[in-house]
């Protein structure tokens, strides 16, 4: 596809976790073979629980963790293979916004210096030009142009996240990797930041990789969504497709656990809830990784690993019984 901006092929990120009890080494399979691509001007959402490996994907794209296997292309640049100066030469094209706007800003740097830093490091423009960019970016994220004189502690949490977005925008990137950008924020501020991200995307044609544990937030921002469990994608589809006809039992369980202010009291108690917790990523089970918690699992699931299979319109599901199971969510049954 010509409008493809980011392409991730067979990405694996494994970490060494020390000596195993019975001799040999233990390995954390944080990301265990994922493929996806992000089209220009769109948002690609990755949802999953903590420990599923979604943040590791973000860090791998940003080249903040070593890539064990696979490749990452930003347009024609294979960024997974670049090092040192050649990596720095394309750094301006992709930037990141982190979850915690408190720990991701240097408390001793004024806002303007924080936003300028990527430009200083990458040697983009001259002194005056960089200050101008910093001011423009402050304005673009809805802060006062003069706010550059202030230190991070003089901003609220929501304003700090705006600062982090301004810093990510400074080098005029095409891709911004957002790792849980609103989960540390109050709901009123969360809405402001989500709307800002959408507005900036529309104005600047940005693409996002958007990582979140919150399905409703992902639905609000993303065009395509992948659901991740224990290092692998279990389902991926265009957002409208996923939220209208999800097929993987894990996706259903995330949907079942979602709360709504309109719901009747005790709604969760009436829904089939997922028991237990994910198994350890140091020793992923041989078959389907979700089998131990899946209410539909059979012997086959525990023995044989399901591959992602296509169900049309870009909808892919890694479940032996995809399409044969009855969704436990009434809204999805009506749609089918």
């Amino acid at each position, binding site marked *: 596809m010509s409008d493809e901006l980011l392409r991730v092929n067979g990405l694996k990120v494994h970490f060494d976790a020390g000596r195993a009890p019975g001799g040999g080494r233990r390995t954390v399979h944080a990301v265990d073979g994922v493929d996806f691509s992000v089209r220009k001007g769109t948002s690609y959402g990755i949802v999953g*629980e903590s420990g599923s490996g979604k943040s590791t994907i973000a860090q791998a794209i940003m080249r903040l963790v070593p890539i064990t296997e696979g490749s990452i292309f930003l347009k024609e640049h294979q960024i997974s293979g670049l090092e040192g100066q050649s990596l720095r030469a394309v750094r301006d094209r992709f930037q990141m916004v982190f979850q915690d706007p408190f720990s991701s800003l240097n408390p001793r740097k004024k806002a303007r210096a924080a936003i300028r830093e990527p430009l200083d490091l990458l040697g983009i423009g001259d002194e005056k030009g960089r200050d101008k960019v910093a001011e423009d970016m402050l304005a673009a994220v809805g802060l006062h142009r003069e706010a550059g004189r202030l230190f991070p502690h003089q901003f609220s949490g929501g304003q700090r996240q705006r600062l982090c977005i301004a810093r990510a925008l400074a080098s005029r990137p095409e891709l911004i990797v957002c790792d849980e950008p609103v989960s540390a924020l109050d*709901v009123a501020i969360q809405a402001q930041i989500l709307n800002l991200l959408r507005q900036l995307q529309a104005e600047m044609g940005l693409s996002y990789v958007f990582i979140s544990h919150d399905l*409703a937030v992902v639905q609000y921002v993303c065009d395509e969504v992948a659901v991740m469990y224990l290092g692998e994608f279990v389902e991926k589809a265009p957002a409208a497709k996923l939220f*209208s006809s999800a097929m993987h039992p894990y996706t259903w369980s995330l*949907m079942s656990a979602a709360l709504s202010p309109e719901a009747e009291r005790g709604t969760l108690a009436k829904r089939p809830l997922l028991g237990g917790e994910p198994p350890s990523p140091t020793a992923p089970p041989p078959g389907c990784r979700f089998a131990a918690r899946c209410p539909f699992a059979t012997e086959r699931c525990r023995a044989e690993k399901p591959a992602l299979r296509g169900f049309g319109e870009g909808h892919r599901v890694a479940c032996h019984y995809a399409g044969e199971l009855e969704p436990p969510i009434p809204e999805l049954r009506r749609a089918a």
Partner: protein
Amino acid sequence: MTGTPFLEVRNLTVEMKGESGAIRVLDDVSLRIERGRTMGIVGESGCGKSMTALAIMRLLPPGFEITAGQVLVEGEDITRVPEARMRALRGNDISMIFQEPMTSLNPVFTVGDQIAEAVKQHQGLDAGAAEQRAIEMLKAVQIPGAEARLHAYPHEFSGGMRQRVMIAMALACQPRLIIADEPTTALDVTVQAQIFALMRELQQETGTAIMLITHDLGAVAELADDVAVFYAGKRIESGPAGAILRHAAHPYTSGLMSCTPRLRLSAAARDGAAVLREIPGMVPQLGRMPQGCRFAPRCPLADDRCRSVMPPDVEVGPAHAAACWKAETEVMA
């Protein structure tokens, strides 16, 4: 509502003594929690939700002080009782579950020891009986292999399991009120659902009242019978959960409702995403409260009166009150 509620907070004011004088962090807050019911306390961070809980428990940080009002537990004003009486109340009659289970458990004692300590202290059980109670409690919160897990340390549990241990500790002395301060904020959604289901089940079995502090209106809809909404140190709306979630009277409450993203499944998922409404601006800083209604600078309905005179609590429906000049009385069917 008639009779004495289990807990009644009356006109509670808490101040922080600073170099430049006293700053009010809670201002004239009133609420009542009935026996066996769940009260949701909602609002953005810094609005005084946790401060209210700490004031009730008399666990305010140094420099903070209750300067007016009462906290009545079955009619007894506990703002004035001696510390010894307070210690008997805490854990025994009122217990607390905190947001971050890792920092509220002691890493160098086994979870069994920590649960047993509470019952030894408060109920005078001997070591054997206390251990027995600890096993019962771990079973009640559905921790598999309770007998063996008794001897495990907090770091050997996952986040969700640790929060279950916290709930077991809170329930061990059969309290009549549990204050849960953002109990699931640090947990995954599927684990949150398990914890909420567990809390409901345990409430039905034990009849304890729950004060649930949360910023999530979805959690309120799931668990609460009654709701109090806080803004900038004031309780600005209170009433039955159904009434507040369906007919919010205060513009801040309806603002919170409309900025909460909803999961849209089925056909709704194919519609273009509706734009999330925002509440512009942010919560005012402590000590820099605007004149008049504190929400006025962010309120779409505010006029001159709102900006100059603090609105009183107005009855807008059965047991439903809002502190807003613009609040309209519910049309009751």
